[in-house]
């Protein structure tokens, strides 16, 4: 695992390039920054509307727009490193080979602290990405990334399917992941029926249950909890359930200072 000065981490896909949060003072004190899920080549993203609002949740299908690895390494990564952030790069792709190629190049990039393999893209197939549904596929992807990542720790973000999450966690750690990120979006649909993810407080109880399932099945595996965390009390629930760290995601869209506030609260000791 990556050593963290604070257990609060910015989740993949919700922190922009980092600069947007920093302009608001909202990176101060956080433990690590997870980038949006990067692909080898640039992606413009999917059609609008990309979001719909639901009680206590956001339904989203952005199509994972991103600059591609080259531009990320040339512009976004150096800024994050210069800012003093611990950077975890989230990766996705259309094939096992693409994941491996991205990992190979990240292993040579100065300042990267870890790779998070995003196996939990809820609308992967709709956007031409590898749809990692079977544990066998997940193991393949993780093994390929671990092989190319050299000394970089590899985390695997698995689908927050309560019934299968422990099995998913087992195969990805068997394949070499040092930690499992549990939670994230639930597979959902936009009002017009397009595949999407559901994030926000609505998914928190599911994510929390996933953490307890993985902890119970694999007590030796570090688990990072992610899903609907908006308050310090939420974060403590995950930590109390055995998570080594928490990721704050969708809450940043509502209040960009959420992660920094929770980090400050936790640094201040128990309340």
């Amino acid at each position, binding site marked *: 695992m990556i050593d963290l000065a604070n257990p609060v981490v910015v989740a993949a896909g919700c922190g922009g390039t980092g600069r947007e949060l920093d302009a608001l003072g909202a990176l101060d004190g956080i433990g690590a920054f997870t980038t949006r899920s990067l692909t080898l080549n640039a992606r413009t993203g999917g059609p*609008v509307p990309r*979001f719909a*609002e639901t009680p206590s949740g956001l339904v989203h299908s952005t199509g994972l727009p991103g600059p591609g690895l080259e531009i990320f390494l040339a512009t976004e990564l150096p800024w994050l490193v210069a800012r003093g952030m611990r950077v975890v790069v989230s990766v996705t792709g259309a094939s096992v080979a693409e994941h491996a190629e991205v990992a190979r190049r990240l292993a040579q990039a100065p300042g990267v602290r870890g790779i998070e393999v995003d196996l939990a893209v809820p609308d992967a197939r709709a956007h031409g990405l590898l749809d990692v549904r079977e544990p066998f596929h997940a193991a393949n992807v993780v093994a390929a990334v671990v092989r190319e990542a050299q000394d970089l720790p590899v985390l695997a973000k698995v689908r927050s399917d309560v019934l299968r999450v422990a099995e998913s966690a087992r195969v990805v750690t068997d394949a070499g992941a040092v930690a499992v990120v549990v939670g994230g979006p639930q597979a959902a649909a936009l009002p017009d029926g397009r595949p999407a993810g559901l994030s926000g407080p609505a998914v928190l109880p599911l994510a929390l249950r996933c953490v307890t399932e993985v902890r119970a099945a694999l007590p030796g595996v570090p688990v990072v909890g992610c899903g609907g965390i908006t308050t310090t009390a939420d974060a403590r629930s995950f930590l109390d359930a055995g998570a080594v760290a928490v990721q704050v995601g969708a809450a940043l*869209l*509502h209040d960009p200072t959420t992660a920094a506030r929770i980090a400050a609260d936790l640094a201040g000791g128990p309340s």
Partner: protein
Amino acid sequence: MAAPRARRDRVAGDAGVKSPFHTTGEVLASKRVGAFQHLTVVAPGVAERFRPGTFVAVSVDGTRLARRALWIHGVRPVGGHGPALQLVVEPVGPGTRWLAERPVGTRLEVTGPLGRAFALPKEPVATLLVGEGYAAAPLFPLAERLRERGCQVNLLLAAPDERRLLSALEARRSARAATVVTADGSVGRRGSVADVVAGVLAQSAAEVVYAAGPVPTLHAVAAAAEQAGAWSQTAVEQPLACGTGLCHGCPLPVVGEDGVARVVRACTEGPVVRGDRVRWAELAGARPAHGEPA
């Protein structure tokens, strides 16, 4: 771990004053004018940073996660509070209705000012400002700034009907010439911006055109400006979830300065963009009829 940094962007007066601010504001006044609700919100740190064309993102109603982007109609000092934001809301969905119904004293989470402002001409040239509906709001403080620079200000205001015509009286006071068009002819001339913008532009001899309104209106203005050889600056409103550049919910297809087509975020690389840089046909084709948070 990064060394603790001085909050450079928290110190008024230095370069950081341009960066946005996240704070808890308070509704000082709320007034219905026609179809719109005019809110006066004190949000320390936000009003001081305002430039015309920027906007604020506001949280609504407890369990709603998406934020609502509101144009800033102006900044006015309010006794005992310092500068306060004048915001315009058209209550059309659950979030905007919630905002419109807030009593005085309500606390609001406000982030802003966000996005890129209208660029001001270096020379005192003639300008034309074209606005439609509530989106015309940022043109009023822009008119003030332009007049301060010695620019001649002409105004073209449009709306479906009189109830959705923003501040027509104020417009007549602040502009050298003001033209009003409504779709139903309830006030001013009957018609749309697309019908009249070329003629108004020719009459005003404006060298710079500023526009704020729905996409088809902005497209018509940008096209007319290009034909007349004028610069255009358009404030594009896209459905969004955050307003701060994080969610990628407001894609805006443009052609960059380098001639390369790309998709940028309307909230961060916009909302104000050069009219000749937007790929209007793609933007219009991509717009949903409904479904975005309102």
